[in-house]
């Protein structure tokens, strides 16, 4: 048995060598991306201690090809952490339940993210300015770094990607927890506390919205909620799956013409952890589509002509990709995902402010402000 195994490994190794020998030209192997992948994979395998901060910065560093000043970022995080600790100590919440310690931490992080606070430095009182929502390039189409936490820290302006990430990082720095949750084109925070059970923190507007606000967006199908595609409190490992998606997305930006291998590797790992992760499923299908188009290109078939799509499938590999793609898109629809047009997104986001009365959980704000 052992001998068989070793023979098998030798066989596999030789295959690997063969593959490396022929494939290196094609595969864009990038050390920084491989490192970031390894870091996150190690956390997923419990080989390395979990740290959402480290995972996020490793992704951003990969995009910057090692040029991210992580020391500086860590110092800024450390400053915010001590600030948050000060808030926890100096402020007594009206909240009365037994998990008050935990809730005080959440409230402190919330204040740092969303509220203007007076700070006394010796004799003078200065105003601390919270982080703000950046209406420019909210999806990072022009520049993916607009989604980054490092950008948020540098400019104090961010979006629904960077703000909840920073919130989660700070909550964990304080020894607390925070669950990320997804909505169409959107990320927000969920906490479970004694007085209210699960509640939402919306950082782009600093409001605690009821679930009905998200449901009223009109783009969350009932099945998507049931299947945990949206509005599910993601655990730490599932949050790392989000980082793997970010990594794959950044890789595509750095290497627009890549062969898809690294992207698929990252996405597949993310889907192992969080199978109904819609964005990852879509990117996977899109990657297969890109691979299909590449094969068409090879055969000198223009993808604009529908006839050619049939023709291309005479290649068994192309046919397989096409079948995979069809199946993948079908699955995405089945689990309840519906695409929200990007122009609808901002309208919806703003509706929380304009219809605040209807959607806000007022009890929570009262708990948190005193």
């Amino acid at each position, binding site marked *: 048995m052992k001998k068989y195994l070793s023979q098998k490994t030798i066989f596999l190794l030789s295959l690997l060598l063969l593959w490396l020998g022929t494939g290196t030209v094609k595969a864009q192997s990038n050390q920084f991306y491989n490192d970031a992948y390894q870091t996150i994979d190690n956390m997923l395998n419990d080989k390395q201690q979990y740290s959402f901060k480290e995972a996020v910065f490793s992704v951003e560093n990969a995009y910057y090809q090692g040029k991210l000043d992580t020391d500086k970022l860590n110092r800024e995080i450390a400053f915010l952490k001590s600030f948050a600790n000060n808030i926890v100590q100096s402020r007594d919440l009206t909240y009365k339940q037994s998990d008050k310690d935990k809730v005080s931490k959440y409230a402190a992080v919330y204040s740092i993210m969303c509220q203007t606070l007076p700070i006394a430095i010796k004799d003078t009182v200065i105003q601390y300015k919270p982080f703000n929502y950046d209406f420019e390039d909210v999806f990072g189409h022009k520049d993916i770094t607009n989604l980054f936490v490092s950008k948020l820290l540098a400019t104090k302006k961010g979006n629904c990607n960077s703000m909840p990430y920073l919130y989660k990082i700070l909550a964990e720095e304080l020894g607390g927890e925070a669950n990320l949750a997804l909505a169409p084109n959107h990320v927000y925070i969920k906490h479970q506390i004694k007085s209210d059970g699960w509640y939402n923190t919306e950082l782009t507007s600093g409001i605690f919205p009821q679930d009905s606000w998200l*449901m009223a967006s009109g783009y969350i199908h009932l099945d998507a909620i049931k299947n945990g595609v949206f509005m599910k409190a993601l655990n730490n490992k599932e949050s790392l799956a989000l980082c793997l998606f970010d990594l794959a997305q950044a890789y595509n930006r750095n290497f627009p013409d890549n062969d898809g291998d690294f992207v698929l590797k990252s996405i597949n790992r993310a889907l192992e952890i969080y199978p109904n992760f819609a964005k990852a499923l879509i990117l996977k299908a899109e990657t297969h589509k890109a691979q299909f188009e590449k094969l068409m290109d090879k055969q000198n078939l223009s993808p604009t002509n529908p006839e050619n799509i049939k023709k291309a499938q005479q290649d068994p590999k192309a046919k397989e990709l096409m079948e995979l793609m069809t199946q993948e898109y079908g699955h995405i629809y089945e689990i309840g995902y519906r695409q929200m047009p990007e122009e609808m997104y901002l309208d919806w986001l703003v509706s929380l402010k304009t219809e605040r009365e209807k959607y806000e959980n007022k009890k929570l704000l009262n708990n948190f402000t005193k």
Partner: protein
Amino acid sequence: MMKKLQFLPLLCISIYGLGQIPNFPTSQVPTSSSLGNFSNPNYGGTTKSVAPSVPHDGLYNSRSSQIQQQNAKMMEEDFRKVAQEEELRNKQENYSIKQALEDSYYNLPSFSGKTGTQSYYDAYNQLASLNTDNYSISEANFIVENAFYGNKQNYNQFKSGIQKTAKQLLQKMKERKQDTESNTDKNLMIFEYLSKGMKLGGVQHKAIKYDFGDYMGAKDWSKMFVSKLLKTGSGQCHSMPLYYLMLAEEMNAEAHLAFAPNHTYVKFKDEEGEWQNAELTNGIFTTSSIILESGYIKSEALQNDIYMKEQNKKELLAQFYADLANGYAHKYGMDEFVGKTLDKALKYSPKNIYANLLKSTFQQAKLEYVAGQLGIKNLENPEELQNIRFYPRALALLQETKAQFSNIDNLGYVPMPDGAYEEWLGNMKGEANRQKSEALAERMKQINAEKQKQKQQEDLRKAQEQKKKESQQSNEKAQYFPIDPKHL
């Protein structure tokens, strides 16, 4: 832990009882040894062959004294056995008295002495005798309501009324040339009958009205009943969907009950395979978002399927058990029957939020009673509550009660204030929603009409094909004969 301790003495008794069985052979042992005595020379010596007469008479000798001894021994044994049994019985009685005494501390006092409770116990057994996956909704509902009325209602009368209406509705569909096989059409028909009213068999039936008075049945529990709806023509969110389901059952249409906060409604699948929500309190078809807008449905509630999920037969039966328990609690109060009935409900549908909430209410009542028996008057006072740790059974009860609180929280339940519920029902009636509902109904009708058309065309095509085939066959036959001779 306490449960184990209760079982221990019981176990001992049963082992002791088993121990008696070996006693029987031992009482036979002397007989076998006396059999051996026949070979005794003494006995053989008595050569009087007249002996087979009555042994007690003439033979008053050593042999008879032996017998006497043996008899005495046997009697002694018997006495011992009787004494033992007596002791055992006393122990058992003592035990059960003590047990009953202890139970009286830890169980709510029973209302079984009150008139009418028996009909509830009977109803429980009747529900238990139903096939969980295939029972009549009318029957199950009747059992529950009849228990409240002390078994005095007439099932056949109830049932035949529903059957009659169902038949008339089907007849009406035929008159309108609708497809009586179409699930959507049948559902649309029931919906129209209930929400708009209709002339059936020459009698104009009015739409069922929503009865705002005491709609939670707080003062009068029978306000929840379908029989009340049938009598008065008005109902609420409990009785209206159930009546709908009964009509659907009689018309062989598929429809399901579904929950929303403080609310039930009907779901059915249309021809396109999409779920439709029939809201009977307002007579509109609602979209999911209207239901979600109540603001009291958390995503966790949907992930756990406590709201907006169609209930299967077994889950619906759980609801009937919960209704039975609730009716009993309203009529008499809380006792162990309520707990037992709710456990049955939760066995069939562990996440049923209504049953879970009732269970929690039951547990709280029980805990309060038990704590009171133990001298703990105020459960809210932590210092007083601490004393409960000396009573393992009470402590277990406290923990169960707390566990149920977090169970309900984790299911995603949020309490909805009464005002909010009324507001939500009111909002639903808004013009925009009514229009949406009309559009939904129109769409369903159109699709049905199309389907029906397709079906007719399909039937026509099939009929033509069949004709063609037949004519072909006959042609073939005709061709076959002329060809055959050629071959010859």
